[in-house]
């Protein structure tokens, strides 16, 4: 903790980030500052604009105004794929895998991206076999090694999400954006994914949207609460959960649940 506090660098910053949809302001002048190495959670009631913020940060949506800085560089409006190549990689709310490829091939697609042979249509795909070992290491890390040859479609939901994390890790991103990583999971899977996130945080920054406050309290170093597209408050779990405005807006009932 002390080490992280000393490191005062912000890896990702937004300045007055705004997105309007035909007169409706989904995201309103949001200023986010994500510290290098933190797990930072973005929470808020339904419709607070969390997913829109995610889409803006990864340029799946262009902002109406405002700027996004990644490592001090302005990345507003560049191609989503280029952002990924710079080290900012996102996951999706619904599990994002390639269902008809094998589990191993899923990870290999990510590893292949930096190989520089992705346009080589005249080469045999066997050249990709040299990536298998690294892919297997990554699968081992998320506990999926024994499923390497399985067609991804046949995996359980929780394992698909674990595979997604392995695929994202393959890019060795500086920063991961996780969109509701535990959504729709049973208790066991939730715990497994939470453990996994703690395991993979080493050396990188994580920004996550999460509804499960138990997970947030366990993982997040810092929390930003959004309400109606604007930042309501920010701080660590104790500060945020003690804030009466937050309790009123969002935690009201859930706080007791989370404490239990």
């Amino acid at each position, binding site marked *: 903790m002390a080490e992280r506090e000393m490191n005062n660098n912000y890896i990702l910053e937004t300045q007055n980030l705004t997105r309007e949809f035909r007169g409706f302001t989904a995201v309103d002048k949001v200023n986010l500052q994500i510290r290098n190495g933190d797990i930072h959670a973005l929470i808020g009631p339904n419709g607070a604009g969390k997913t829109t913020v995610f889409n803006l940060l990864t340029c799946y949506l262009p902002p109406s105004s405002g700027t996004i800085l990644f490592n001090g560089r302005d990345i507003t409006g560049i191609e989503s*794929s*280029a952002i990924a190549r710079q080290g900012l*990689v996102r996951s999706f709310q619904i599990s*994002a895998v*390639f269902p008809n490829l094998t589990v191993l091939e899923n990870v290999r*697609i990510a590893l292949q991206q930096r190989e520089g042979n992705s346009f080589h*249509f005249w*080469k*045999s*795909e066997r050249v990709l076999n040299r990536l298998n070992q690294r892919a297997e290491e990554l699968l081992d890390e998320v506990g999926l090694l024994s499923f390497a040859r399985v067609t991804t479609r046949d995996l359980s939901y929780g394992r698909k999400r674990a595979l997604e994390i392995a695929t994202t890790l393959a890019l060795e991103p500086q920063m991961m954006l996780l969109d509701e990583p535990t959504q729709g999971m049973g208790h066991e899977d939730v715990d497994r994914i939470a453990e996994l996130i703690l395991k993979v945080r080493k050396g990188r920054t994580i920004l996550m949207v999460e509804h499960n406050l138990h997970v947030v309290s366990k993982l997040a170093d810092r929390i930003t609460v959004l309400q109606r597209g604007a930042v309501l408050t920010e701080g660590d779990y104790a500060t945020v959960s003690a804030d009466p405005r937050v309790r009123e807006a969002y935690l009201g009932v859930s706080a007791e649940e989370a404490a239990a």
Partner: protein
Amino acid sequence: MANLLQSDRSFYTTAGILLVGALLAPALVYPVFLMKFLCFALFACAFNLMLGFVGMLSFGHAAFLATGGYVTGYLMTNFGLTPEIGVVLGMLASALLGWGFGALSVKREGIYFAMVTLALAQLVFFFYLQAPFTGGENGMQGIPRGQLFGFINLGDNLNMYYFVLAIFVIGFALIHRTVHSPFGQVLKAIRENEARATSLGYDVRRYKLMAFVISAAIAGLAGATKALVFELESLTDAHWHMSGEVVLMTLLGGMGTIWGPVVGAAIVIAIATIFSGGEMGNYIHIIMGAIFVVCVLAFRRGVVGEFRHFMQRNFQAALSTERT
């Protein structure tokens, strides 16, 4: 990887048997019919590269077939080129046109992509209708087949057949390799989940454009070869009916399978040939339409797709024990 090796082996076995069959076929079947089949099969395979392996439905592939035919026909007629050079130039012209089509259309998806390609192909159709060198409604007639490498007379149907077979094998091999290449892996990822491919750092449009160019080039190769076979290039090839026919062939045979378009082309060409001679000639479009309806309703995977599915379902146990 056992799985991969096994599917590799079954592919090469099938390919080997078919190649031997194709080498012997002219002894039994009229070569011009076979050549017509090979040209359309290659055309359908080129189309399937986009529809089956990237998930892009082009409704303008007639433009590439016709461009290959017209460019090769024009060059062969006016410059006395040898046929192998003529065919390659026709193919390059189609690739170039494909790059233009692709640059304008890959930003769109689904039905919008199909409509943009259709509109562009109609533009090309009307250009060929008006342009003086195409012969308009009469078509470009009397295209010489020429001498292969300057000394093999392709006027002889048997020589021509083996030339066409060689082109088919090269084109087909190129498609097979593309599908099973590092590039092909990315294409499959895009087909499976485009947003995820983007989030992994792939600039999806550039891959789609590349696939478009390869597909257009091979469609052009098929058109160029076909023009030499019939010594004729006509507006039929540029018409949107042709774009529809290649969709029919691919779906009937099984999209996304490597042999599907070949089987689909064989069925369509065989039916067209059998019925066009007799009194049934007037009903051919109705027959094709009915087959298409049955195919879409009853066996959506197409002939090859259904066959593979049947084998997997019934022999899965046997296969998996063999693998271990």
